[in-house]
């Protein structure tokens, strides 16, 4: 009996996944170019938001500094491509290394703080980063920015249209999500949750909390930098205005709206934050107010974020009988 139901569940999952995959692959053919463009931005911001979500959901750390790493990745790519003439992967790696190093260096003293102090410290970092982007205009071009960043061309195939970039970045996002999903189930994931929920117990059991926090912060920064590099290749132009505190708030919105404890929810959060204002702007001047109201409604009615809501639905359908024939709740989120 149990195996038949198990097979049915697997079938449901398979059909669902197949449906999702079909929709995903067909969207660019049906939607206008600007819609695909917007989906690409959503994917890029989702990658950066993933870093923030992971940090928040698994370690309980509110980070408002993701815009700095996003910017470092973008400027590394811009500088590497236009001034140094390096191939794209080299510049990208440079950005990742710099971001990781800064995250580690800053993380060690700052992550010792907790709660609101830590949030404020990350905000302070966001401000510092933004000012340095402005001041060091020999490196970043300041307000004028750096233009002429070439599109990515793996093996000579130029990814210079929204549709091509869409097919390029979506699998990357998927892979990153799967990596984090696995991380959640690993020993490190358990250690992180212990650190978040019961720090003293975790410490007693030998979890090196300080080190773990720094590691997660660094990996979050790496994600931000990677997303920034892709962003630079996509827009082909970077300027300081894209890397300010409002960007940091956007990433945090994506993380929280997506439901920081689920990973896939980040995608929904990114769609909300990117696609919704875009659609609403067609309504006219009232669109900013409408977005704020929808945000409030989403937060109130979905306290676990979009991901949490999806997880609840999933659990509801995932009920399966145990060996004694009693119906139990399905798999954990």
């Amino acid at each position: 009996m149990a195996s038949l139901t198990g097979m049915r569940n697997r079938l449901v999952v398979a059909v669902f996944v197949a449906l999702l995959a079909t929709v995903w692959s067909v969207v660019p053919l049906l939607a206008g170019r600007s819609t695909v463009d917007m989906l690409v931005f959503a994917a890029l911001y989702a990658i950066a938001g993933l870093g923030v979500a992971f940090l928040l959901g698994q370690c309980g750390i509110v980070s408002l500094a993701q815009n700095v790493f996003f910017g470092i990745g973008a400027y590394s790519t811009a500088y590497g491509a236009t001034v140094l003439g390096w191939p794209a992967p080299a510049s990208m790696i440079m950005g990742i290394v710099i971001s990781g190093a800064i995250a580690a260096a800053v993380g060690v003293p700052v992550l010792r703080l907790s709660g609101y102090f830590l949030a404020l410290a990350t905000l302070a970092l966001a401000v510092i980063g933004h000012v340095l982007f402005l001041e060091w205009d020999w490196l970043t071009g300041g307000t004028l920015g750096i233009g002429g960043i070439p599109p990515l061309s793996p093996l000579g195939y130029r990814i210079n249209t929204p549709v091509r970039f869409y097919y390029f970045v979506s699998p990357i996002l998927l892979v990153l999500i799967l990596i984090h999903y696995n991380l959640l189930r690993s020993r490190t994931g358990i250690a992180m949750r212990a650190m978040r929920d019961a720090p003293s117990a975790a410490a007693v059991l030998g979890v090196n909390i300080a080190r773990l926090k720094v590691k997660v912060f660094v990996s979050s920064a790496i994600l931000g930098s990677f997303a920034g590099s892709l962003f630079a290749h996509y827009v082909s132009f970077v300027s300081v205005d894209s890397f300010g505190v409002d960007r940091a708030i956007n990433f945090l919105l994506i993380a929280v709206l997506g439901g920081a404890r689920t990973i896939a929810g980040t995608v929904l959060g990114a769609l909300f934050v990117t696609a919704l204002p875009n659609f609403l702007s067609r309504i006219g001047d009232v669109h900013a107010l409408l977005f704020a109201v929808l945000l409030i409604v989403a937060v109130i009615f979905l306290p676990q974020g979009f991901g949490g809501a999806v997880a609840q639905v999933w659990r509801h359908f995932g009920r399966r009988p145990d060996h004694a024939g009693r119906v139990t709740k399905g798999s954990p989120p």
Partner: protein
Amino acid sequence: MSRGQDVFLGIACAAAVATLVSASPIRAQTAQGEPIKIGAVVSLTGPGAGLGQPERNGMLLAEKDVNDKGGVRGRPIKILVEDDGSKADNAKNKAEQLIFDEKVVTILGPSLTASTGAVSAMTNSEGMAELAFTGLGPKIELSYKSLYHLLPPQELNARAMLEYTTKALNSKKIGVLHDTGYGQVVTNALNALKAQYGVEFVAVEKFEVGATDASAQAAKVRAADPDVVFIIATSPVPFRNARQVRISQPIVSAIGSSSYDYVRGMGEFADDIVFPEFLVGEDPLPHQVEFVKKYREAYNALPKNYEAAGWDAVHIIAKAVETAGPDAKREEIAKALRGPYAGVFAAYNFAADDMTGIQLSSYVYSKLVKGAFIRLPFVAK
């Protein structure tokens, strides 16, 4: 259906058509036919709204003007205005929409340099003409074939300020208070010109674009004891702060600061400030009179520089499409633009290296005296 019903239906249709045709205005000059779509991406919200909204007003007024005079080769033009919210990513997205989904003939705007960077990368790769409401931007633009600017490069703005300071005020010691955005770009240009004009910048202080207070910076400028103070910002805050910390020297500003909103924001300190700009609504030059009159009738307010730029943009592109033909290829339209044009805002020459061709002589100097602008007789050469 019976024959009788067919006939009845036919007569009814004919009657309906006849009514519709007779109901539409019979003015032979009015443009009719499939509208020629022109795209515009400007900042209607966000920090750039002070630029984008006047530009939109000017463009829409010009659209009506062009259509009332018969349109382009008999067809009306239609300007599709999109807001980039002062962000480059949005500008790119809106431009994608206009170019590929709406299939516009050309793009007007954006209002900000960063957005122009994002949009021009696209229009350039599509060979589409673009008339940006910004000055010359980063070096990459020099390789673009169809981008034209309607505002002077910051180097020219800097020159205009220095011309007035050295020739009309006979001063060489200058203190500068500027913001980190537009102000920084102009200041960089000023620094590059200081040897040529023989001036000394005894203090250069900056504040962030959205800052609520710049008193400390203003105090530092005052402490350096300059003869003239340059304030370059897109907000009234530094002007107030400067006078409040007792800076009594004459102030020279730049084109981005002369809007009436800022004047209101300056309160009683809207006095003794000189602007090198292009249009003084209270006292327009002869070739600007008609535009000012039309603008006043339509909006019941005085236009200034950005409205005039919007007006010019639409007329310039209308003329180019008229010359090249509405079904001309993009490269032909871009080519048709590449020449001189005497606009309301300034005398352009789009064949010039800086993609604008504005000369110092196009500048009109105005002085803010007790909250009202008067036109100064000074002319730079």
